[in-house]
């Protein structure tokens, strides 16, 4: 689809008309600035239109401001599928189920870390296994893994990784209740057993940052954020466990779609009607993978705390601000407009973040007045943001906003254009120390390969789907 087919509805709202494709039952709707429209690949529009063909989709096939090419769903895609008449699609969640981000605030100031970035990150790198093939320091039995995937972050805390208060600052309290470990294959367990507490590779990272700007004093106060204080951001997901769960269910759904007579424009959108065994089994297994990811981030949090305590030789506070999932499907109740009554949906977010507005019962008590914090990581050379959910998002995007900046250059192109050593040197001149398993990881993840996070977050802010609270600048980054 060509960009000319887009209809501009508002300064930041663009639509793909329902008539674009015969199978679309709703229009596509994108939140973009004029500048961002130009960097969206044309195939991304096609993917947004394809999602609009899923049975039971409500209102719009949505794309957040970082929209870019994915497989099946676009990255930045949000779709609410009717709980009774819709479908569930593993492709709407992706292989890295509950890939997500958490933010820890510390009682350290920027000056306390300045000059020590390298040593600190080496310490973190030694504590938290990263990179391809890295193995966890934990070796779980199958039965322990069963308990872990049914209890998520709560398993971690019960086993000494973190504190009770961490739980309430995770989406879903770090545990999706519908998880059923009896649906997990031997293979998923085989991949998952040795990866609890590992960062992984690619765009996953552990970053030491400081808060350089506060946009919303009141919300920042509620979230406990102060200028010049150090934060730690952890970005990882459900590792091989989630990848295997998705792989197996995409195949099952492929057959289910045929069985239930669902005609799909892209096989990766394979799905099954809610309530069918195929849909239920996937959802329960997906919940296991989501819980695995929360346990993973919780264990890494605990080792991060250890690394800080050892390094500074004192009790450093590292309190969890919040933990968000950005690849997940959730059963949620939404009231779209005044005319309609509340209804249940399976909201699929693929590279998009839940950002519920003030007063929602699913967000921690402490944040009831401000709205849910959402974390938007940048890239290793650019700012990350903490934003808050809005009432507008509740009415327009099923309470969702962007999840990151999104790539604009393929890994291959980035490797051709940048050299790891040079990128590392340039970042170090900006005061950012980057540690990776080797140079090509740094080249692939070079800041120039990503869209400018400020632009993406500003569009979300100006469109009203989330509001900026604070900005975080990287000081030291560990990449897998």
């Amino acid at each position, binding site marked *: 689809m060509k960009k000319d087919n887009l209809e501009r509805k508002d300064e930041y709202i663009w639509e793909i008309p329902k008539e674009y494709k015969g199978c679309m039952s709703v229009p596509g709707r994108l939140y973009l600035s004029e500048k961002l429209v130009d960097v969206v*690949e044309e195939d991304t529009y096609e993917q947004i239109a394809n999602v609009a063909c899923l049975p039971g989709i409500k209102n719009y096939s949505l794309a957040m401001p970082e929209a*870019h*090419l*994915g*497989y*099946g769903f676009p*990255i930045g895609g949000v779709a609410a599928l009717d709980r009774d008449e819709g479908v569930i699609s593993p*492709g709407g969640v*992706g*292989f*890295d189920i509950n890939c997500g981000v958490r933010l820890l605030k510390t009682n350290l100031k920027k000056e306390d870390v300045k000059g020590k970035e390298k040593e600190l990150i080496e310490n973190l790198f030694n504590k938290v296994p990263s*990179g*391809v*093939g*890295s*193995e966890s320091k934990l070796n779980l039995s199958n039965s322990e893994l069963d308990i872990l995937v049914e209890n998520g972050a709560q398993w971690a805390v019960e086993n000494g990784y973190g504190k009770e208060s961490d739980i309430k600052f995770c989406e879903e309290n770090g545990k999706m209740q519908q998880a059923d470990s009896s649906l997990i294959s031997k*293979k998923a367990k*085989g*991949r998952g057993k040795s990866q609890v507490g590992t960062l*992984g*590779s*690619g765009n996953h990272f552990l970053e030491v940052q400081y808060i350089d700007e506060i946009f919303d004093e009141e919300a920042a106060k509620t979230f406990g954020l102060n200028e010049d204080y150090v934060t730690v951001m952890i970005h990882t997901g459900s590792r*091989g466990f989630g*990848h*295997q769960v*998705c*792989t197996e269910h*995409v*195949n099952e759904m*492929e057959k289910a779609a045929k069985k239930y007579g669902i005609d799909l424009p*892209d*096989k*990766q959108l*394979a799905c099954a009607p809610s309530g069918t065994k195929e849909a239920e089994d996937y959802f329960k297994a997906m919940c296991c993978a989501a819980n695995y990811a929360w346990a993973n981030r919780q264990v890494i949090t605990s080792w991060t705390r250890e690394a800080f305590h050892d390094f500074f030789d004192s009790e450093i506070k590292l309190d969890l601000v919040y933990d968000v999932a950005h690849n997940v499907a959730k059963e949620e109740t939404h009231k779209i407009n005044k005319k309609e009554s509340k209804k249940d949906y399976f909201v699929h977010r693929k590279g998009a973040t839940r950002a519920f507005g003030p007063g929602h019962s699913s967000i921690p008590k402490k944040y009831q007045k401000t709205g849910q914090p959402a974390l938007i990581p940048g890239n290793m050379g650019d700012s990350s943001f903490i934003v808050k959910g809005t009432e507008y998002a509740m009415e327009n995007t099923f309470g969702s906003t962007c999840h990151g900046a*999104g*790539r*604009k*250059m*393929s*890994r*291959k*192109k980035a*490797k051709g254009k940048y050299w790891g050593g040079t990128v590392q040197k340039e970042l170090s001149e900006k005061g950012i120390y980057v540690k990776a*398993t*080797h140079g*090509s*990881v740094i080249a*692939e993840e070079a800041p120039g390969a990503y869209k400018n996070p400020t632009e993406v977050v500003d569009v979300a802010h100006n469109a009203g789907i989330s509001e900026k609270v604070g900005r975080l600048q990287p000081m030291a980054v560990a990449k*897998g």
Partner: protein
Amino acid sequence: MNLNKKDFEFIEHTADAKFKAYGKNLNEVLENAAYATFRSMLDLSDVEPTLKKEINLSSSELDELLFNWISELIYYFDAENIVFKDFNAQVEKTKQGYELFSKVYGEKINPKKHKFETEVKAITYHDLEIEEKNGYQVQVVLDT
């Protein structure tokens, strides 16, 4: 044994890895697709084919066979930390569809020796193509 290792090409894709692989028959195209999958992660000249695995599977459709074949290799890569470089696949047409018998060779991941550029999480059905055209050709998008 698969000796012709140039029988594939990478295609531009912003977030993931995409390739086309070719072969004069089904066996060869599957071998080349497997090679391309691992080549998208690292330079395979650093890998010694000292460890052998046998992978046998069956599928009713050809695209599912390709999906299952690559998924199985990724499984061993991730669960047992083995990186593969040589592939010997034999496909047989049956009444129910296809059966694949294979022997694959590689070695345990050694971070000192193996410089990974990226990690493949899974094969996707997005844009997946397998067609008979001057032999066979396939198109694959990998989630990286």
